[in-house]
């Protein structure tokens, strides 16, 4: 049996069953059972001509069986069972993956539940795989997922209200950054899911923008760290290692997003910045005035102080380090405990030819970060200035 095929069908199968019957938590179990049934039956009986319809039918029957076991829901079950026998669940034309994404990223769920639930129900990862990615014990991750499913159930299935596309994009980006920060398979899952959403909702500029941002960021993967795992800053990356095909596709998507959007959204703007970096053959060729202009626009659509900090870097590259350092004052209070403030100030003092002040800020940033590779990088910078 083609397990990749079956797994790729999971979100559509689950979406179809939940759309028809509700009961998200029980439906999810039923779909898992249908997959097991496929695994044992298909090699013997042959892969059905329409594997998706087969999985939906089997999952629906399992769901009905499980609901039958629940005496408290007896009357509703009978109605369900009758309708399942009468009209086998039709395979809807609309792609149910999107419906499922809206459900998993429902605003009623806390964010730390949305991400694992999306990975489980939409990306089809096992609980063990998700637990490994987040470095927690499997029972802990199982509980997080179960709690999320119960919340959906308590919320009445969630299908009464339209989901928020913005919430879906945020969850996909969170999955991507989890992967981007070291877990490559999660980044690949995030891109796969975003590609899928883009096929369905490519008319939305921010969907296009997010996909572009992911591809342009992923294009730099091979250059971002040394073989030993040490981080390499953008300016020092070997640009020959950047993935030209991903950059070309990402850049084309950025152009599409910026042409389509009436108002530039944060993902499209971040992607545009990544595209400007990507088009520079060497760090010294970077079009900093254009990046600065894009950060100005980005600052207007988000309240994130890190954006202002990034604008300070771009300002320094265009107007000199003193101007950049002055701008960091504006977010000094909000980012007082964030190592990025000290790291940016260190970099700008270094550009300003003040190695002692730079060193002090690198050491402060190294103390503030809780990331081992970042700490190592910052201490390395400080040591270089001795």
């Amino acid at each position, binding site marked *: 049996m083609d397990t990749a095929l079956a797994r790729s069908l999971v979100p559509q199968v689950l979406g179809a069953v939940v759309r028809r019957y509700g009961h998200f938590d029980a439906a999810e179990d039923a779909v898992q059972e249908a997959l097991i049934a496929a695994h044992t039956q298909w090699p013997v009986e042959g892969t059905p001509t329409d594997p998706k319809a087969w999985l939906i039918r089997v999952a629906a029957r399992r769901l009905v069986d499980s609901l039958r076991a629940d005496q408290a829901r007896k009357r509703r079950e009978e109605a369900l069972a009758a309708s399942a026998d009468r009209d086998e669940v039709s395979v809807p034309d609309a792609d149910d993956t999107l419906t499922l994404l809206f459900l998993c990223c429902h605003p009623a769920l*806390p*964010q*730390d*539940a949305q991400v694992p639930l999306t990975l489980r129900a939409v990306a089809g990862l096992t609980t063990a795989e998700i637990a490994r990615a*987040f*470095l*927690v*014990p499997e*029972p*802990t*991750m199982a*509980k*997080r997922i179960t*709690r999320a499913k119960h919340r959906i159930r308590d919320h009445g299935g969630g299908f009464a209200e339209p989901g928020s596309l913005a919430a879906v994009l945020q969850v996909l980006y969170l999955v991507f950054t989890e992967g*981007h*920060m*070291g*877990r490559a398979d999660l980044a690949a899952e995030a891109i796969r899911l975003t590609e899928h959403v883009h096929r369905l909702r490519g008319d939305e500029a921010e969907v296009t923008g997010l996909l572009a941002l992911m591809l342009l960021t992923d294009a730099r993967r091979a250059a*971002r760290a040394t073989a030993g795992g040490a*981080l*390499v*800053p*953008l300016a020092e990356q070997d640009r020959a290692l950047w993935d030209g095909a991903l950059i070309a596709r990402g850049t084309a998507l950025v152009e599409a997003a910026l042409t389509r959007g009436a108002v530039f959204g944060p993902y499209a703007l971040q992607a545009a910045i990544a595209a400007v970096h990507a088009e520079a053959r060497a760090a010294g060729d970077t079009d900093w005035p254009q990046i600065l202009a894009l950060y100005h626009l980005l600052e207007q659509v988000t309240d994130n102080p890190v954006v202002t900090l990034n604008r300070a870097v771009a300002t320094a590259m265009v107007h000199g380090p003193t101007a950049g350092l002055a701008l960091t004052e504006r977010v000094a209070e909000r980012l007082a405990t964030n190592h990025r403030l000290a790291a940016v100030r260190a970099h700008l003092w270094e550009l300003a030819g003040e190695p002692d002040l730079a060193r002090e800020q690198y050491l402060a940033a190294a103390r503030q*970060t*809780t*990331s*081992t*590779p*970042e*700490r190592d*990088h910052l201490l390395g910078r400080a040591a270089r200035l001795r």
Partner: protein
Amino acid sequence: MKYMLLAYTNREAWEATTREWTATGQMPAEVAAACEFFAELGQELVASGEFVGAEGLADPAHSRTVRPSAGAPVATDGPFAEAKEVLVSYSIIDCATAERAAEIAARVVAGTGDTVEIRPLMSPTGEL
């Protein structure tokens, strides 16, 4: 974000409890209460999806210390606690905010009377 909660307890009180246990043959009430508290908290943290690990430590009398030395590292018995406060248990939790970690630590303090130090864990990932 993962945090380690290190609970320190008064050494003399720990020894007094052990003496009481030996003298009466009965688990002292405060030990029973602490066991019950940790069982409940553990269940609660598993249910909330925040539990990573937790253990209680044996009496410091079992401590051995390995120190660097010229040639090979050297292991010795002890330290036979001179410190007033000794490490008695640790837990690792994975929770959304530092405030939540402090809230759980406060529960341990209230439930055991121990002093709890909260230490964020270093993350193996990062980006510039």
